[in-house]
């Protein structure tokens, strides 16, 4: 019998979750070609957006088409999973429609033309199959019949359980702007974080991004200008708690998830004045820079204005006089830093806050040494959003690359970005801009 090449004509079906819709095409069903089962398993071992993956055996717009498609599927691919000593189970999944139990049974019975020879086992079957029906994406207009139907052999589930297990709700140490678990893992995936990488976050805050990266086997380090956050001191961000406890710091967060051994260091440092020697040190730089709304944008510098004192007075936490760190400078510095300190092929992943009415693609900062890989919008409100930007280092920096943006015609479009903070607040009722709220942790 000829060995079957699994990389040839098999299609796989990914069933995607209904969240972060901005990051993908509208349909939750996605067929993939040209992959092997091993590839699909690797994807599912990392994805927090995909619920399940199936080896696609048949599909069609009607059950009749599905049947034709299934009868045409090579029986030698089916037979290893159908033989009489095996156990199996068929699931029925309907997207955008609730099905009565009796209707589910009817659909399973209707598949009797398939050559199942094994025994049904609901509890612990060796093989699981799934009939998936797509009833469209409009919850207010659900058709009587599905618009598309798929049938396949279940391969693997995605890592969506990480969203629950790593929820910020249950994390020891959080801040007002801790990144939710799902997005942290998405960012780690965008950066292609892998085992034995060294990852750096220059605006580390409470370390949410480092937690996600450590889960994928990377060693992690970070810096933040805020002494209290790095040391785990000061006011708590939890509703019923006034001050942070002794075990609240980034290291404790990693310990909570069993990845403490991936902790390298955190430091109090100003990201605009990097402290690293000029070498390609990091495999990835993943960060959520301040937008100037819920946490201040700051940098050290001589300035006549005195900054407001930090909340919670701790003697050692002397913060040198802060000056406003203009948003556009943050990103120019970040891209330049990445060009110098990423390994070749390493990635920078960060959030860019955007005032939607004035957004244009020219506002996305560029750098001659970095290639823009993706730009995914997450809407925050009617007039604001943030974009997850992924860039990859493609070239070593030369002397004047850090100034390239000044001669770039798009530079003036980007300068307008500095007004993001003002524009954000103009859209709201007049409120105190001083950060005085304790966030009611809504987690993920």
């Amino acid at each position: 019998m000829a060995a079957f090449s699994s990389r040839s004509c098999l299609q796989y079906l990914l069933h995607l979750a209904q969240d972060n819709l901005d990051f993908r095409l509208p349909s939750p069903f996605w067929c993939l070609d040209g992959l092997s089962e091993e590839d699909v398993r690797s994807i599912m071992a990392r994805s927090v957006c995909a619920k399940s993956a199936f080896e696609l055996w048949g599909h069609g717009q009607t059950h009749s088409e599905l049947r034709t498609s299934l009868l045409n599927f090579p029986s030698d691919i089916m037979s290893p999973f159908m033989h009489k000593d095996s156990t199996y189970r068929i699931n029925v999944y309907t997207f955008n429609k609730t099905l009565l139990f009796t209707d589910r049974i009817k659909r399973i019975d209707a598949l009797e033309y398939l050559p199942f020879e094994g025994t049904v086992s609901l509890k612990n079957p060796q093989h699981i199959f799934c009939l998936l029906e797509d009833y469209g994406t409009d919850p207010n207009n659900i058709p009587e019949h599905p618009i598309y139907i798929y049938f396949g052999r279940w391969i693997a589930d995605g890592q969506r359980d990480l969203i629950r297990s790593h929820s910020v709700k249950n994390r020891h140490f959080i801040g007002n702007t801790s990144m939710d678990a799902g997005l942290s893992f998405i960012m780690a995936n965008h950066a292609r974080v892998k085992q034995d990488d060294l990852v750096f976050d220059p605006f580390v805050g409470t370390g949410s991004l480092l937690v996600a990266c450590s889960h994928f086997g990377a060693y992690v380090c970070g810096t933040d200008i805020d002494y209290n956050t790095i040391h785990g001191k000061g006011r708590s961000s939890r509703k019923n708690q006034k001050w942070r406890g002794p075990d609240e710091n980034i290291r404790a967060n990693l310990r909570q998830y069993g990845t403490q051994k991936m902790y390298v260091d955190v430091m109090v440092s100003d990201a605009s004045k990097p402290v690293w020697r000029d070498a390609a040190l990091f495999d990835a730089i993943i960060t959520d820079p301040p937008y100037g709304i819920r946490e201040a944008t700051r940098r050290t510098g001589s300035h006549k204005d005195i900054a407001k004192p930090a909340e919670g007075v701790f003697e050692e936490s002397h913060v040198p006089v802060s000056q406003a760190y203009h948003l556009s400078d943050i990103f120019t510095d970040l891209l330049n830093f990445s060009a110098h300190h990423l390994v070749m092929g390493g990635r920078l992943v960060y959030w860019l806050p955007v005032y939607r009415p004035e957004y244009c693609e020219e506002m996305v900062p560029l750098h001659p040494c970095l290639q823009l890989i993706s730009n995914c919008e997450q809407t925050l409100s009617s007039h604001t959003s943030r974009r997850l930007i992924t860039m990859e280092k493609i070239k070593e920096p030369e002397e004047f690359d850090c100034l390239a943006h000044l001669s770039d015609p798009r530079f003036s479009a980007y300068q307008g970005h500095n007004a993001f903070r003002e524009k954000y607040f103009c859209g709201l009722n007049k409120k105190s801009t001083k950060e005085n709220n304790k966030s009611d942790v809504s987690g993920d």
Partner: protein
Amino acid sequence: MKLLTHNMLTSHVKGVTKGYPLLIKATEVKVNEVEFNPQFVSRMIPKLEWGALVHAAEELGHRQDLPGELVQDFEKNEDFLKKVHRVLLEVEVIEGCLQCPESGREFPISKGIPNMLLNEDEV
């Protein structure tokens, strides 16, 4: 602060050109057990300034038998990798400071965390 981090840090005091490596003045050093991962150590070695690592380990009194020169074919040399692992990841400065070799400016280390912030008049 671990010596892996120290190896990558440099002084950013204004006007300083020979700010690497920072001198370490430690008043409390701890040695923790960290799971040995030969692949990670092998990947880090090419990024290190070997002389600075040895010197730092010496400053802390934890050099032990770490060789002064990088060993050839270190990827397969588990004994060597274990020595490097100990020095990179297991030795931690808990209290003390880092000192710029040119200007003498000190950056305090407290609870294992260096504070690299410069003052208003230094930037």
